[in-house]
């Protein structure tokens, strides 16, 4: 038996011994005690972020606890929950002096929408919940995002950043943001492939949308479609 094999054997035995007591990958630190209670929990920022699987989202998820008049509550306990493989750092904390609680979210290994809950208790012990969605991209969707960042967002994203100025306002009719599910969910995969590959006029749409069929491969256009489906809001549910 090589050292590595024997080590593996030893590890497996160890695993069998320890597997009964292991419950979660990240044991929660002791949960703090609430010193105040609110009557509503609202979102501040950090929802609907899109990133690759296993990534820690670039912006923290921030929520705020308010009392009945809408004033912020300091010291309310906020607990974050989600699918078993998602990690919150931290997963429970008290709201700060501005009534807010922020956590960093690390996505799990499965593709799709992550439905998260931020919860706090009201003064009568009732549960107050806030539902938040984040999106995890699989390999194909992530490839679509990379291609989109290079070829598409300059026109399809109306927001400018320091690195790129949006061309959105120069176009009539305006392009659709890829999260615009109301528009994209009505278009079949085949039609989307055609618009990207053959350009807008192929489906009676604007000639401002150029054809990418000679620039991108079929697999790359499929990745674009997968990406558009992944980020659409409302969610795409197939035809």
């Amino acid at each position, binding site marked *: 038996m090589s050292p590595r094999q024997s080590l593996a054997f030893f590890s497996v035995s160890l695993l069998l011994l320890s597997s009964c007591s292991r419950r979660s990958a990240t044991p929660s630190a002791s949960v703090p005690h609430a010193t105040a209670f609110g009557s509503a929990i609202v979102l501040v920022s950090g929802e609907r972020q899109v990133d690759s699987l*296993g990534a820690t989202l670039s912006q923290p998820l921030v929520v705020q606890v308010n009392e009945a008049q809408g004033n912020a509550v300091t010291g309310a306990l906020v607990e974050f929950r989600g699918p078993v493989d998602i990690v919150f750092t931290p997963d429970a904390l008290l709201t700060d002096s501005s009534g807010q609680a922020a956590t960093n979210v690390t996505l799990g290994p499965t593709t799709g929408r992550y439905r998260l809950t931020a919860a706090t208790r009201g003064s009568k012990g009732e549960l107050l919940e806030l539902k938040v969605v984040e999106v995890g991209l699989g390999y194909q969707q992530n490839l679509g995002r990379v291609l989109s960042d290079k070829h598409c967002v300059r026109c399809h994203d109306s927001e400018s950043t320091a690195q790129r100025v949006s061309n959105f306002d120069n176009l009539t009719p305006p392009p659709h943001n890829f999260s615009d599910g109301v528009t994209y969910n009505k278009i079949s995969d085949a039609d989307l492939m055609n618009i990207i590959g053959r350009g807008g006029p192929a489906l009676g749409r604007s000639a401002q949308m150029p054809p990418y069929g000679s*620039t991108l491969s079929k697999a790359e256009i499929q990745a674009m479609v997968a990406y558009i489906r992944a980020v659409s809001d409302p969610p795409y549910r197939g035809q």
Partner: protein
Amino acid sequence: MCHRGQGPATTTQEAHQSTKAWEQPLLPARYLEASCGQCHFVDLPGTPQLNLGRKLLATYGCVRCHQIKQADGTVVQPTDDPPDLRRIAEKTTRQWLYAWLKNPQAYAASAKMPNYLLSDAEALDIASFLMAQSAASASASASPGAADAAALQKGTSLYGESFCASCHAMQNAAGLLVGGDLGPELTRIGSKLKREWLERWLENPHAYDPDTAMPRYRFTSQQVALLTDLLMSKTDSDLLAGASSDPATPEQISRGKTLAQKYGCAACHEINGMDKPEKFAPDLSRMGSKMLSDIAFPPGMDRSLPAYLRGKILQPRRMGPSSKMPQYPLATQQADALTSALLALTDRAASLPEAMHISAHMPSSYEPAGQAGQLMKELRCQSCHAINGKGGDMAPDLSWEGSMVQRPWFDGFMRNPNTLRPALIRRMPKFNLTEAEIKLLGDYMFTAYQKPGFEAGGPRGINSPEIVAEGRNLFYVKYACQSCHIADYKQDKGYIGPPLAEVGSRLTPGWIYSWLKAPQSLQPGTLEPDRHMSDDDARALTAFLVSLKRQGVEKGPK
């Protein structure tokens, strides 16, 4: 192969989550791209994280201390440019060196120099040693110049006109960094430099550092004075507040030398009397297969290789008091990327047959030749432009410049490079070239940088008003080129591609035609979509674009 993991598991959960005790557990999803890197040694579009990680290994100088020989036999080469310190006393003061060593990011937020977490005494010792080893030592101190407001205003204009911001960033009033990252940040430069050194540097940087990426501008002595006044006014009084101004003692210098050896300063910097240390830090060529039993995990760390790598990269000194690795200014996203790049370096990758390795091309060593080549080297064209596979990627590839542009446009652009992309911060600097120098450059480029078998004249019969009108129609209706380009400043607004309002005076008809037919064949990776255009459409569009001539006489600046 791709996701690692090993041995038979009987439940999904065991296979996916409970394998921590195994030597090679399943790779966490966030480092999945590491697997691609076992065969692929070139950037892939689908592995942005791995690409970034590999780039960081080269740009943060990791490979100056650690050797990394990839499975395909290539050794990762550093691409950063840490300064030579053999004449450092000409350039700056011991006070500044002390402040810099204590916390490089306090001087420049964007600095790549890591923080060695030195005590005050250690930093003072090393600063003393570095000043003492320096060849020539000018006695003048870095006193900010007392330039008047009008001179500063002129200097600011010259800084803008010279496009210093293409390479150098400065913090603006809102604290945001504005400018490129090819050269060092200049926000607090006046607290660092000696005035005489800066004047000599602006006059000819290559006299001090023959390998710098900075071009030799043809500044007049008056312009040098204006820029010096401006830069020396960029001071931060807090920066040098804690630095001792007592003269250095021989003990300090001697202790400083010992410390400089301990921390391996010479692995990155040239220092008099100190050789580059060999095998200063562990070889990382097989880091992705490191046995967990060989790793001393600090308390509280997950017992896994990815957790160790990430932890070590983010907080090297956490691994124990014997660790000499400094603290790098890395974001967690960069640490994840580096972790991916290191996890790709496995025994398994090395054991794969050579046919499975997809390697990068051999790096090009092209350098322009002759008298014009000498001028191009002085201007450091290849700091920004690639030519025949070698050079920077900030500016367009010049390999076929002679086939692409028209000579009168080229000459005008060299005189006053102000026109092409007004919206960009990073633009071609104005070098103040003489007419003889412009002729020398032009003669060389229009001879050497030609695309083989290229017809600059383009297709025949593109001058009739009918075909121009047909091309105009294709431009605006069928292909909607105005979405991204401007042919007429009065009505078009697209600014993704370059403006085309004077393209007929800039590009050759042959280049326009070939570009329309297959843009990626002339410039791989260009954003211009390949429209798969018919010969007739391409001919008519060429006719229209060629008709868009520059108004007025071709002479000097507008």
